[in-house]
């Protein structure tokens, strides 16, 4: 049972929308204020930066409390540590729940950090208790930890509606087959992919069925995350890490099947995203298509050329320009309701954040330059603000 009613969440969602509409000129200032007043609920929320700050310090508080309990109680063996972790995880979740019930917190940072801490503690606790009782193999203990974390995350999603908790639950479940010792890499990858696929189908159906915008948005987010997970489970060039320890002897049929799938999945994601007007899935499809282009050559065993990034960059720019022009040439500058124009001011905010991140990137590249070598250029060591004037071209 969720701590928030559908109407409360709808109102919170609408409040954000009204604010965005007001800033984008779709509502006048007095209209926006009037509607905001009408949409008031008794939930306490805060802005994104204070939310992050509160989450950070709550994490510090929770971690210090757990360590303090561990040190003060003189816990030394594995089973007692596991039990303590489980108790602290349970307390952490209870504290989050009580804070939401008592103070009506909504995406406030504090309760979110407590929920995240409880998920981690439950996972660790279950693994340690299981290991101490049954002397489990490492991978079995990890499987237990992931299962416990998935259960706690799933419950947190149900209880507080935190989208990332839902995503974490899906990821934890899908990672379990990857830890299996017996099956071959194709089997483990296929099992993980099947779990992601099932999650994508289920959450997509959830989004299609519901009449509440917030639930639909949740469904879209979970589906996009599951599709990304599905792709990562199948792309042999990106997600090779977890399988390296087993040595990689893959049959050609599996390699070629996954090669076909890493082209098919982004195309399907883009198609479904456009058809269901799901911007998150469109963005995921776009990202996956880029990942496929980047990993295409290693997949085929072809050597990378230095000009590949230039051609790739040109391709992206041409696609953007052609798409923009195609949309703009439609009636009213739109095609099927899609437009390349900015509608909401929140999009400009996103670009502002990117430009701030760009400043950080350019500052990061400062290093004193090495001595120039007239006959043979050695482009090691950046020295400018990232404009390419640095040494590491």
């Amino acid at each position, binding site marked *: 049972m969720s701590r928030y009613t559908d109407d409360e969440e709808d109102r919170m*969602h*609408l409040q954000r929308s009204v604010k965005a509409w007001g800033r984008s000129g*779709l509502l006048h200032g007095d*209209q926006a204020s009037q*509607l905001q007043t009408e*949409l008031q609920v008794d939930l306490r929320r805060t*802005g994104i*930066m*204070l939310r*992050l*700050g*509160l989450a*950070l*310090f709550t994490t*510090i*508080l929770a*971690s*210090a*409390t757990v360590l*303090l309990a561990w*040190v003060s109680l003189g816990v030394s063996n594995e089973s007692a540590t596991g039990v303590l972790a489980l108790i602290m995880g349970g307390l952490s979740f209870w504290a989050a729940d009580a804070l939401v019930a008592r103070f009506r917190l909504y995406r*406030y940072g*504090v309760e979110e950090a407590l929920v995240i801490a409880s998920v981690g503690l439950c996972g660790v606790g279950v693994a340690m208790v299981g290991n101490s009782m049954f002397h489990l193999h490492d991978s079995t203990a990890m499987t237990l930890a992931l299962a416990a974390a998935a259960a706690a995350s799933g419950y947190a999603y149900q209880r507080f509606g935190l989208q990332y908790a839902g995503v974490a639950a899906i990821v934890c479940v899908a990672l379990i087959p990857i830890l299996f010792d017996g099956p071959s890499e194709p089997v483990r990858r296929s099992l993980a992919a099947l779990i992601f696929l099932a999650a994508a189908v289920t959450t997509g159906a959830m989004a299609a069925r519901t009449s509440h*915008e917030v639930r639909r948005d949740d469904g879209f987010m979970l589906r996009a995350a599951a599709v990304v997970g599905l792709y990562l489970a199948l792309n042999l060039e990106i997600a090779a890490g977890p399988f390296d320890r087993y040595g990689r002897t893959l049959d050609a049929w599996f390699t070629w099947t996954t090669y076909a799938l890493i082209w098919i999945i982004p195309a399907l994601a883009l198609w479904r995203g456009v058809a269901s*007007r799901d*911007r998150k899935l*469109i*963005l995921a499809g776009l990202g996956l298509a880029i990942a496929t282009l980047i990993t295409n050559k290693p997949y085929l065993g072809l050597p990378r050329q*230095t000009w590949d*990034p*230039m051609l*790739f*960059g040109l391709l992206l*720019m041409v696609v*953007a320009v052609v798409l923009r022009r195609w949309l703009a040439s439609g009636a009213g500058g739109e095609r099927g*309701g899609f437009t*390349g*124009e*900015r*509608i*909401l001011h929140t999009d400009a905010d996103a670009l*502002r954040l*990117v*430009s701030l991140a760009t*400043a950080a990137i*350019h*500052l990061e590249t*400062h290093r*004193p*330059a090495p001595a120039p070598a007239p006959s*043979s*250029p050695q482009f090691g060591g950046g*020295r*400018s*603000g*990232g*404009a*390419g*004037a640095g040494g590491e*071209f």
Partner: protein
Amino acid sequence: MTEYLNRWLAAGTITPAQHQALGALLRRERLSIFIELNALLYIGVLSFVAGLAWTASTYSEQWGDAAILVPATAVVCGCFYYCFSRGAPFSTGETPARALVFDYVLYLGCLVFGFELGYVEYRFNLLQGQWDYYLLASAILYFALAYRFDNRFVLSLGIGTLGGWFGVRVSHAAFVGSVLRVPALAYGTIVGLAGTALHAREVKRHFTETYLHVAANIVLATLLSGVFDAPAMSVWFAGLVLASAAAIAGGVRARRFAFVVYGTVYGYVGVSRELLRALPGVTATMYYFVVSAGLVILGLVVLSQRFGREE
């Protein structure tokens, strides 16, 4: 949620035209892919310049300098020609770009220009020991272009390149480590003051936050590094406390809570560093974190309840 829209229309709070426009957005009948197009262009520009640099570093010996410089110069000239021939007239206010690609064409031109400067200096060593003046000159050019064409990406490039110049100037000194702190403080202060001064003169006020975010992080991080390096409580600590307090007060006053968080986090780390020197044992340390983090949370909650919703 369309029920709310219908209710507002019936009550006369919104007009039929607004009802139609907002309903289309809520029902996702009208969808913007503005961000997606911008993402493609941004990644495209960065990827192109990275490829150009990689190609130059690999093939310059084999192909010769002209094969690298002529096409790169053509790209720079083409980009700048496009921007100067199609750009809107200068305005001290915010000037929307005339086309989606406009900002990225200018950014591409500036990045390739920076690449060329670096290449020329490495190959021909024209300024010898004074090569860092390339950085200063290019930073000035980037600032001028950022203001001329109202381009945040180029502004960020200019701020970063200016930071590079400060760093490189100091690297001529014998001991780079702690010596960098004073120039870093000077850099952060200059960036902050420049942003504030331009804001006061109402020149591109929407750029101010970029200056202030960079300045706040540079100054606070520099002071914090001084606190960590000092063997005992030092002037760096006093500076950090003052700067953190200023960031928090300024953030609250301007309702920019990112600065409140910067001041709180950097200040907390610095104060913790000093206090933990005196605290004996793990238990006392954990007690310290429990109490101090609790107090900070309390402070942020109070702040959030009083002002945070306006963020």
